[in-house]
């Protein structure tokens, strides 16, 4: 069974739960795969650390949590330190290059670009950093097509912010592709 495990981690308020939900929705509703999303709750989810996990598979998913992570997004140094250890050999680590200065060592592929800054300066609103990150994760993991992921993004945001989010998603997707090649 093709079980693929993703973790979106960082600080509360960065929108990582939403990013995880949209990734899972893309797989489950638009890609025709199965997906489970779960998250940490409680004090952790109120300003401190934040974590959203997504399992994607072609068949039924039993254990809904990460066992060995295939792809990790770390939006803070703390998250990178805390979660990179159970990243699979050959897995993907995406980090915000402005926020994660010390790249954790390991046998995985690290991709870095200034995610929040891209949102702020290139897209125009810092608030869509999570969608930039999502676009990047979609590009790096290949679990869902760019089209299906975009559909999931656009069906999850308010009407007035569709264009902003479309731009954020595309920017993230393309920046990650470029960074991965480079």
């Amino acid at each position, binding site marked *: 069974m093709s079980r693929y495990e993703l973790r979106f981690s960082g600080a509360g308020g960065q929108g990582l739960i939403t990013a995880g*939900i949209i990734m*899972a929705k893309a797989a489950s509703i638009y890609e025709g795969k199965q*997906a489970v999303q779960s998250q940490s*709750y409680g004090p952790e989810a109120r300003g401190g650390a934040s974590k959203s996990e997504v399992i994607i598979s072609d068949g039924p998913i039993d254990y809904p949590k990460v066992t060995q992570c295939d792809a990790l997004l770390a939006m803070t140094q703390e998250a990178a330190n805390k979660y990179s250890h159970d990243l699979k050999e050959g897995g993907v680590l995406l980090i915000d290059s402005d926020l994660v200065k010390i790249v954790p060592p390991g046998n995985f592929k690290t991709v870095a670009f200034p995610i929040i800054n891209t949102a702020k300066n290139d897209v125009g609103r810092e608030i869509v950093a999570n969608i930039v990150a999502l676009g990047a994760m979609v590009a790096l993991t290949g679990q869902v097509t760019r089209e299906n992921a975009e559909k999931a993004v656009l069906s999850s945001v308010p009407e007035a912010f569709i264009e902003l989010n479309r731009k954020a998603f595309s920017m993230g997707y393309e920046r990650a592709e470029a960074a991965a090649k480079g």
Partner: protein
Amino acid sequence: MSKKVAFMQGNEAAAHGAIYAGCTFFGGYPITPSTEVAEVCSIELPKIGGKFIQMEDEIGAMAAILGASLAGAKVLTSTSGPGLSLKQELIGYGCIAEIPCVIYNVMRGGPSTGMPTGPSQSDVMCAKWGTHGDHPAICLTPASVQETYEEVIRAFNLSEKYRTPVMVMPDEIVAHMRERVVFPEPGEIEVIPRKAPTVPPEQYKPYDTSFGDVPPLAAFGSGYKFHVTGLNKMQDGFPTTKAEIVQAEEERQVRKVEANVDDIASFEEYMLADAEVVVVAYGSTSRSARYAVNVAREQGIKAGMFRIKTFWPFPDKQIKALAAKVKGFVIPEMNLGMCSLEIERNAQGKAPVLGIFRVDGEPINPDQILEKIKEVK
């Protein structure tokens, strides 16, 4: 024509399932980790002319749903550990007065405030023994979001069919995780209506056993007038202390469920045909168990899983049969051994029962179960 699908949490699915089942009244009190049920009900119920009320406390919420049920509505409340404790007296009231209602309880750590956001499975005994006095208990433990949707519908059906409170108890993991839900079309899943009286109002008795163990229930405001009390009662609903009546009525109330275990109990057998080690699991833990069983099979171990979907009434018959032919049971649960006691009771020493008990707010992972499977010799 493709069916409506959505990607949602177990709690959200529960609210939608309730509405499919005909629920028109929700009474609740905010408590983590079950609040999404109330939130969805507050949005959806008024759209169909239903009512949502946030009561002043957990007990009030339970009282309000019982009152609304007597006035003819199909009713739901949602809660979690401390709220379940507070509701217990009135759950007993629902049992003795035989008022259909569904109590959706998300299991979090306890006792008391415990770990409000951590998953747990430690309310399963409270579901049966929480309220005082002998009473029937039905408790369903779904393991996925889709199943939560469907089991809530089944809970409403059982509640109406047997005229008794029914509990649906997902653990926090099932309640909060998101999965795809495929919504059934209207009519696709059977929805059981309340059995209404066929006799004219002047002949109506709310506990008339000439209609069987489950007498029809009239609604207040429907032309019938009758008395309801939490005291031991006679067939006409009025209190009594007559020994033979009290004994007979108490026995009937319990018999409604005990005599219909085969209709109520549900379970899943996974790779049990040749299994030597059986993992008995429920709720989210069964998902770890399935993973572990699959790995064990790959390694040549004859493992299987018995998944409990209906915790109460407990599948005694099935566990007894398994005990007679397997080498051992493995029971992973997020408590300190509640289901294990039931398995031991049924195994009667014929097969060892190995528990994995976790109450630290972390899920039981497949590795832990696999290790334990290997301990069975």
